[in-house]
């Protein structure tokens, strides 16, 4: 993935796909995503009718329940042109990689899904691709570490880029997380269906987080954020788990207050 592309190809307008979880559980992540994109000079459109990409049912095997929801998603976002940005590697993976399996045997829908997937980007991927990892220069005095969410890392292929983006936040002291690329145990419905196994995996993650000693864990998928935060709260830990969009938006706000932006 190129880190920088010519300014001329920088999109001026994008459509936000919030994802169902951000929309209803963590709207501040959605607002922060808008803030970050607007800071980059982009006009952000929001389709009021959006709900979900269909991943939860698909991952649980209920493809005939997922199919109409995914079809609805495609039909809705086909109404707009230009890039679609989603603050979730997992939802991006669903559309870009797993729709091919969901729509298997339906050639027309497979093509439509592929076309849509070609212009759908995860947030940090979008920033890196069109604006470069050094595009956002905010300020946030804190200590943090970064967890690599599985679908963003392995399905979308975004690895070190978010850390590079975060390295431009002034005052943010990053300490690499041991086994940052090992799963946190979330896995969607898996976390509810097999809570014992999900939590055993989480425990290893939380041990590494506590050993790391940072005040904050940054991750790029809200499901993983809640898995880790929910576990840390249960442990009585004060460590905060924060979505990367919120960190970037906060750092931008801090900079503008300080008159740097």
């Amino acid at each position, binding site marked *: 993935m190129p880190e920088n592309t010519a300014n001329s190809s920088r999109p001026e307008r994008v459509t936000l796909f*919030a994802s*169902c979880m951000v*929309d*209803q*559980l*963590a*709207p*501040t992540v*959605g*607002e922060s995503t*808008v803030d970050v994109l607007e800071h980059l000079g982009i006009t952000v459109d*929001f389709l*009021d*009718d*959006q*709900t*979900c990409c269909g991943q*939860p*049912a*698909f*991952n*649980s*095997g*209920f*493809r*005939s*329940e997922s199919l*109409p*929801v995914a079809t*609805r998603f495609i039909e809705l976002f086909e109404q707009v042109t230009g890039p679609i940005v989603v603050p979730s590697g997992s939802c991006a993976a669903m559309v870009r990689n797993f729709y091919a*399996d969901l729509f298997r045997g339906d050639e027309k829908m497979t093509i439509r899904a592929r076309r849509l997937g070609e212009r759908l980007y995860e947030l940090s991927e979008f920033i890196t691709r069109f604006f470069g990892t050094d595009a956002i220069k905010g300020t946030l005095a804190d200590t943090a570490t970064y967890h690599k969410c*599985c*679908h963003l*890392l*392995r*399905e979308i292929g975004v690895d070190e880029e978010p850390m590079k983006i975060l390295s431009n936040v002034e005052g943010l002291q990053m300490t690499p997380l041991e086994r940052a*690329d*090992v*799963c946190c*145990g*979330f*896995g969607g419905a*898996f*976390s*509810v*269906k*097999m*809570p*014992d*196994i*999900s*939590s055993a*995996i*989480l425990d*290893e993650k939380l041990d590494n987080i506590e050993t790391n000693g940072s005040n904050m864990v940054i991750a790029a998928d809200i499901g993983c954020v809640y898995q880790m*935060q*929910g*576990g840390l*709260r*249960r442990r009585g830990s004060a460590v905060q788990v924060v979505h990367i969009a919120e960190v970037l938006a906060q750092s931008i706000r801090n900079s503008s207050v300080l008159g740097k932006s």
Partner: protein
Amino acid sequence: MKPLTSDFRAKAAETMVDEQVLQSLEHVYTGFFKGRLEAAGNTDNWEDLREKGKAIKDHTIAHLDYYLGQLADNVEKNGGSVFFAADAAEARKYVLDLAHARDIKTVIKSKSMVSEEMALAQALIDEGIEAVETDLGEYIIQLSGETPYHLIAPAVHKSRKEVAELLDDSYVDGNPVPDATELTMMAREKLRSVFERADMSVTGVNFAVAESGSIALVTNEGNGRMSTTVPRVHVAVMGMEKIVPSIQDLSTMLRILIRSATGQRISSYVTLVNGARKSDEEEGPEEFHLVILDNGRQKLLADEQMRESLNCIRCGACLNACPVYRKVGGHAYGWVYPGPIGAIVTPVLTGLKDASNLPAASSLCGACHDACPVKINIPRMLLELRYRTAEGKTDKQERTSSMRERTVWKAWRIGMMGRKRFDVGSRLSRLFLRPLAENGWLKKAPPPISGWTSTRDFPLISSSSLRSRLNKRSKKTKS
């Protein structure tokens, strides 16, 4: 081997509280996983090799009947016998009949997962024939009466103390625990006389080469080479997918297998066997038999969605990478093949209905796909099996989902098919959950969220959706 896949959850729960086993499973990550990464990093064209390995396997599996025919012809040309076994029982019977016909007293076994499918060692013992595992790990679990815990490290879950109790007749609790070298020497001493008196060997096959009729064995202990040279009868058992067309392909596959398995560039021994002793040769077995096992593999071959699993070269890299395997251990999977690869092949080979928890027990993190030297897309197949158990569209008998699950997902779909419903559903859930929340988090929630709150706090649904917030925001900017 009789599948015990329906015990998955119970077995997994036992392991997750067994500190000693969890500690041993750490080595799988710190040793094998990191070893593979390092070996891959030190190999210039690693990704090309993986692509090449995948292409070789794709091609071979697509033309399996041709290459099996060629292999059988060439083994016979080399003076060996070939037996195609439809299932484990047929394969077992062939070996037992052969052992009786040749008046065999002692069989030495080198490591073979296919022989585990056949439960061969125990079958020989039941017939009054001495049958001893000679791979150190296999020997340890034979002594403890267990099955392999890992594809390449069968006794990885055993502590040194447990091994000492099995190998050292003089060991009593409280004695200083012998180190690994001492333990190996004890095993060596016990096994040496068995090697000397063995009149038959059973080995596995890492790869069979169709164009030459040879079999390749990858070992680190030398027991494999002893097995293929000392006894007068050598029987090799293989799954029908373990085949490569040419010697050149073999060299590619060996390079990726060994690096992916142990992180070595090459194992201590790579043995190529071209059949029994020829008339002008002085050493080697008098007879060579190759048993090629189907045991459900044709089901995988015929199954377009699952066929890729036949590309597996049994390196164990997916186990080492898997966060689930490292917590639930190898025995939870209930049959011969543990870990991610087991979670996709076991359900097809032994029956999906009993094994439905195997594909369900995954966070779909994709570490297995990433680690696989031949790039088998394991998560894709886990999802395929979940689809079958959820809806039973492929085979009604395979549906294991509960009425409640089906209702939940139906309700979910209805809720997601319109924005108003989506909002109303979320608001109602919030109203319902809010009395249970404290500072925006729930310590205890009703089903289906109760699974989550058994170990983690759950976030309360937000007081307003993103849509309503963004709409307010745009009104503010407009005014």
